[in-house]
């Protein structure tokens, strides 16, 4: 793979005493997991990539394009948050439609694209449902469908499935993984569970002590942790 899906070079960020520096290159089209203890800066990394936070130094590239100074909506990135991914008063179709046009003027072609996206995430025919009539898993599926119609090459998962049960969480991860293979997008997820990383992630980064302590293919990284902090984190 020639192009990097996501590249952070010398990205610095922090408040007061708490400072982090990130150097990372995720190959295009791969699925990367970010592991690490609470407070290691996993979500901060995603916020920097999505543009909700601005780094104090360094550069962020997506698909070879420098996005460091772009506004969140201009970046070729979609984020799935842990909650509040949908507006509660809009239907599934409208929530997805906002991903195509923020003023929600949709052509009939776009509407059929939305229906197709709903079908791909297993929610065929649920266009008119408001979020309150959907289960937690179904809501996140609607958000995934929106990320599909947005056609952004990089998808960030900020623990969107953390509140779901283990079986449902595995289903959702498999769904995202299948969509990744179909579309060729790059996926980066924050995770608390090494088993999730093993299941779907080609490569894994371990965040520790203000930076990325280790990065490599998931299986070899987790089977033979050569960084002491990672071994301690995994409890092996």
């Amino acid at each position, binding site marked *: 793979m020639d192009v990097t899906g996501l590249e952070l070079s010398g990205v610095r960020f922090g408040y007061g005493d708490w400072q982090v520096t990130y150097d990372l290159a995720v190959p295009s089209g791969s699925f990367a997991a970010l592991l690490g203890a609470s407070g290691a800066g996993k979500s901060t990394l995603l916020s920097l990539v*999505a543009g909700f936070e601005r780094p104090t130094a360094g550069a962020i590239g997506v698909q070879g394009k420098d996005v460091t100074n772009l506004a969140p909506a201009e970046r070729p990135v979609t984020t799935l948050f842990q909650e509040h991914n949908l*507006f*509660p008063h*809009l239907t599934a179709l409208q929530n997805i439609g906002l991903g195509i046009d923020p*003023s929600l003027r949709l052509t009939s072609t776009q509407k059929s694209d939305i229906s197709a996206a709903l079908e791909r995430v297993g929610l065929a025919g649920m266009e008119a449902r408001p979020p309150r009539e959907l289960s937690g898993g179904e809501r996140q599926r609607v958000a995934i469908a929106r990320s599909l119609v947005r056609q952004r090459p990089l998808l960030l998962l900020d623990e969107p499935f953390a509140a779901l049960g283990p079986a449902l969480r595995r289903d959702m991860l498999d769904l995202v993984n299948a969509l990744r293979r179909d579309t060729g997008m790059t996926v980066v997820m924050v995770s608390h569970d090494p088993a999730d990383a093993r299941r779907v992630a080609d490569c894994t980064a371990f965040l520790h002590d203000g930076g990325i302590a280790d990065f490599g293919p998931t299986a070899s990284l987790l089977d033979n942790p050569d960084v002491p902090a990672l071994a301690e984190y995994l409890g092996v």
Partner: protein
Amino acid sequence: MMTGYRPLLWPGGLALLSTLGLAAVALGALLHAAPELSMAAVWDSYTLRVLRFTVIQALLSTALSLAFALPVARAFARRTSFPGRTFLLRVMGLPLVLPVIVAVFGIAAIWGQNGAISNAMEASGLPGLSPLYGLSGILIAHVFFNMPLAVRLLLGAWQTIPGESWRLAGQLGMGPWAIFRLIELPRLISVIPGVAMLVFLLCFTSFAVVLALGGGPRNTTLEVAIYQALRLDFDIARAVGLALVQVAACAVMAVIFFRFAKTPESQATEERLIARPDTDHLPGRVIDTLALVTGSLWVLGPLIAIVIAGLSGPVIDVLSRREVWAAALRSVSVGVGAGLLALVLGIALLATTRDLAVRAGRTRLADRMELAGSLTLVISPIVLGAGLFVLLLPLVPVFDWALPLAALVNGIVAVPYVLRILAPTLRRTAEHHDRLCASLGLRGWARIRHLEWPASRRGIATAWALASALATGDLTAIALFGTQRDATLSLMLYRALGSYRMDEAAVLALLLVGLCLVVFVVIEGGIGGRNRT
């Protein structure tokens, strides 16, 4: 929080500038008129007598309201499911929105010389009640308004007691007295000072009740004395002096109030519905039933009397008068105008304070700005009106401007309601959805249309409806600026009461309540939408 974030300062800045600016101009006009008088001439035995009466009636009203509210609130807290509980709690909210002058009519119909109780006593051979006017009438009216308010506030404190406490109390076998002493009392002690200060402040600045029931210089409060000096004696110097005393007193109380009034930290957990262990105790049942029945009758009696007296009065005669409908139209226009003004000022202020609190991390500054928006706690509507009156009298024909001025004063008075209703919704909308909006590029008009409006239209409708209904029934500002020529319905009702035309007053009172209700329902239904959850 984003570093170097530049908050949206101008809307709130403009709103505060106009309200505080207006208050400053009003106060400045009073002070400007002050040099022509010596403070010694104002600070005389009359002022002292008025101040003493104001304080005494407020102290007694507060003590009685709280003493009555405690058993009623405890009964509501202990009996969490009896038929009609929700209805009775709603009833406890009614005095807040009932036009004061209408309530005075209802109270007179129960407690007056020719009221229901007096008639019943005479019918059974007992001497009837003496006239309602004077201190006893003022106290009854103040307890009518403030006992239910205190019940609702105290009940809020009871509900912050975590359910686990009841489970623990049951396990340890604590009796009703131990529960009160060890669980309920500590919680109440933290809120009673705040509630008492609020009730005291409301009674200290009470206007319409004292105007209608106060009768004579012996039973006059500062607010009414300012009005009398301006409108009856035309003694501007005295009005200015009294207004300055009033502002100073309220400022002192407001400072004390904000020292005491801390919102009780919520310790309520997920499990709220753990039953109290002391509900089967027989004496407790008797006490609670008594408290609930007395409290309900106390509030419902005057309300029912208003309806019965109004319907049995000369309905056709009063409703066929052209001037009654003209007055009704004036009431509604003052009400809707004041509501709209309060809404615009409130939303402008909240646009800035939300930005400061949620996005710039300046929560303290945001809270202070919202507090400054509630300045009418220090500068009462009568003082604000008196300042405008003194300012405008040499410049424009004040009495021709009565309705816009009344709407202006009422609008500023209603800003705190708008802030309380809308602040939580607006802040929550930003907290939950800012990031999603940023990533979708949802901003400007699209953000208002697809997010802000659907999320807050119910709150906007409720705030506008409440502010408008309160201003529709207002007597304070219109008494100051209004004349016979452009009387509102509340002024017409006040005059009918003053000249003992009770049959006419009964119909006017019911009409005014109906009008406030219509204003509320039409605005809330029309703006808030029906099929929203």
